């Protein structure tokens, strides 16, 4: 479609053609508007249908579409003219825009910058808002974002490195959360003991999912993993004896500072360290906990990429048949990717349970999987920095909008951007598809170099077939 369009403009489409095209779009809009928009139906008191004609709105919509299409064609025309002057250096490969953008150029600096910002956030927030209490909003937002960063990094192993499209990642998040909740409430095990157990349980489930889907590829794999996510959720709802059903599990033991509870009593955290009690201590601790977990995920992933297993994952994404011809057991390679990705999901899940103190199946619906996958795809599959940026944008973005006062002035007092989250998702996805089809950071850094490590253009990197 895009190709056809470009070809069309390349042939030197005149203004008349563009006008005709925009007119066509307006006409289609009109056709769509007639049944949907043109009459507003209200039930009157006599329960008869009142039809209110709204032809003004229809005209406005058609006009808007006409104008937008006109502008789009103009912009495309200008861009193509510019492209024609500077031919792409590499015509033989796929015509995907892969020139390094600003994001890629700063990505070397990005890591220390992010790390510094993340470490300093609670302090800065406390200083800026005058005390830990008022800084709560920022610290909680930080926790939320970091949870998604961690989930994104975990899923990145499966989707970004091994190229296996997993639409049911939230299942492992749920397994981790329930493992911690059940172990802690029934056996009274501590968080630090439950954390590895939750990771192991999730990894086990990852293998369980891995086995049946090993032979599937592409769409089929996506469908089965999606179903797996739903099955886990339905099991959680229906196995009432174990999981409490839709009521969930409440009064999960809260996080302690390595055994010292965050309470006001004489044995509490504040008293032990000679501080005055503040309920926010726990949140700050949780913030640094998830930061540490996320950094561990990142560190392990970066290390794995340089080990043979990581290279085998990427090779699997590039070409599975070639892998087998080189003696790589693709079955175990895929299973380890599933298991490790799931393990990090399990860690994040048990963190979620210890933070909330309450979990129910509702927290683990498909939308969560979709958000995590969107983070990986938007970030640029396989890129750690890209995933972090995408998580901040996807999770922090709507929050940011909420705080913009002028939006309320424009859209009315009751404007809540969270209600528009899906719309924003959609817009972000479409925008990315148009401008950065390979994600924010589309350059792949090689895992090893003979002389100098140079980024590989995203146009050459395959996205996997399964």
């Amino acid at each position, binding site marked *: 479609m895009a190709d056809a369009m470009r070809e069309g403009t390349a042939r030197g489409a005149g203004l008349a053609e563009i006008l005709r095209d925009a007119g066509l779009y307006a006409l289609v809009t009109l056709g769509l508007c007639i049944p949907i928009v043109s009459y507003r139906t209200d039930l009157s008191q006599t329960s008869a249908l009142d039809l209110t004609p709204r032809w003004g709105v229809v005209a406005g919509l058609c006009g808007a579409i006409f104008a937008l299409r006109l502008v789009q064609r103009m912009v495309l025309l200008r861009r193509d003219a510019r492209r024609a002057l500077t031919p792409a250096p590499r015509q033989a490969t796929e015509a995907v825009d892969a020139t390094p953008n600003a994001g890629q150029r700063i990505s070397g600096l990005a890591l220390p910058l992010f790390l510094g910002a993340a470490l300093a956030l609670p302090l800065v927030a406390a200083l800026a808002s005058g005390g830990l209490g008022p800084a709560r909003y920022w610290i909680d937002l930080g926790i939320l974002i970091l949870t998604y960063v961690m989930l994104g990094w975990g899923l990145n192993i499966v989707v970004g490195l091994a190229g296996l499209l997993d639409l049911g990642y939230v299942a492992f998040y749920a397994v981790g959360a329930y493992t911690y909740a059940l172990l802690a409430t029934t056996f009274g095990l501590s968080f630090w003991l439950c954390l590895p157990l939750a990771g192991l349980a999730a990894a086990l489930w990852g293998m369980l999912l891995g086995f049946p889907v090993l032979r599937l590829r592409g769409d089929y794999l996506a469908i089965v993993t999606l179903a797996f996510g739903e099955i886990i959720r339905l099991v959680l709802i229906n196995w009432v004896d174990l999981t409490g059903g839709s009521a969930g599990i409440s009064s999960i033991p809260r996080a302690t500072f390595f055994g010292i509870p965050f309470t006001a009593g004489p044995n509490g955290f504040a008293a032990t360290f000679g501080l005055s009690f503040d309920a926010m201590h726990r949140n700050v601790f949780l913030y640094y906990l998830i930061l540490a977990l996320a950094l561990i995920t990142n560190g392990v992933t970066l290390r794995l990429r340089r080990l*043979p297993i990581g290279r085998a994952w990427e090779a699997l994404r*590039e070409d599975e*048949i070639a*892998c087998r*011809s*080189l003696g790589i057991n693709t079955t175990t390679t895929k299973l380890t990717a599933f298991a490790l990705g799931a393990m990090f999901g399990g860690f994040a899940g048990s963190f979620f349970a210890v933070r909330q103190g309450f979990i129910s199946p509702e927290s683990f619906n498909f939308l969560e999987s979709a958000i995590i996958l969107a983070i990986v795809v938007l970030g640029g599959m396989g890129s750690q920095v890209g995933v972090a940026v995408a998580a901040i944008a996807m999770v922090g973005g709507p929050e940011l909008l909420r705080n913009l006062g002028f939006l309320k002035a424009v859209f009315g007092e009751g404007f809540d951007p969270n209600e528009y989250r899906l719309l924003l998702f959609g817009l972000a996805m479409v925008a990315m598809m148009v401008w950065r089809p390979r994600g924010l950071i589309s350059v792949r850094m090689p895992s090893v170099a*003979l002389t100098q490590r140079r980024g*590989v253009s995203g146009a050459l990197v395959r996205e996997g077939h399964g």
Partner: protein
Amino acid sequence: MSGVIDPREPVLTVEHLSMRFGGLLAVNDLSFEVRRGDITALIGPNGAGKTTVFNCITGFYKPTEGRLTLAHADGARHLLERLPNHAVNRRARVARTFQNIRLFSGMTVLENLLVAQHAPLMRASGFTVLGLLGLGGYRAAERAAIERARLWLDRIGLTPRADDPAGDLPYGAQRRLEIARAMCTEPVLLCLDEPAAGLNPRESAELTELLRRIRADGTSVLLIEHDMSVVMEISDHVVVLDYGVKIADGTPGAVRTDPRVVAAYLGVEDEEVEAVEAEVGLVLPSAGAEA
């Protein structure tokens, strides 16, 4: 099994190999041998079943019938049709290239050669566990693997491009890299599916040089090739396939003049068949039936 091993003994023995796809018998009761230290060529017109034979040998297809035996110099024998796909490379040490190049195009040239050394590196990294903790000899093993890769890069003349993505290389270089990648698995038998396809004469000459070198270093080669100049120049033994059936088997010189081979290759064009018939002085049964 021990004792003196004849250096001319077969490294690969194909016995009564048949491969059926639904109603199509792509390979029909094929038997031949690849002798150790030889370059054996498998030739035949398009659709003769050559790639299918390769896929059976390398474990991508399970043959409908037949036995494929691979013998190592130490006497160990592997029945290839019983091995799982990846084990054909890892245990039986058979490596291959593909008719349509299958490189890891988004990975660098060097990375491609390291992926090929997966098994030894995996062992050195303690199956990831030790490597993750930074213990054991993984670093040394990786350095050795890079050295081996570098050796092959020097041989195929791609050392300056080691850090470029494989997908960015020109076609001829990609073909050579695929061969080097297969060689990095340290195979006993190397199967090449049309390595000279799409190469210019200079690249073809470089390829024959490379294959000679591989043979000299002790790896036996099984080669599918359409470029007869390459086949005649370097192969020690030629097996000719037509419609899944072996029609000739012998030295390049003998096969070149075999009337059935000539007919199979030229069979499409009537005048040429007549010319060949006249030259060979023989009326072929198939050509006669068609006429």
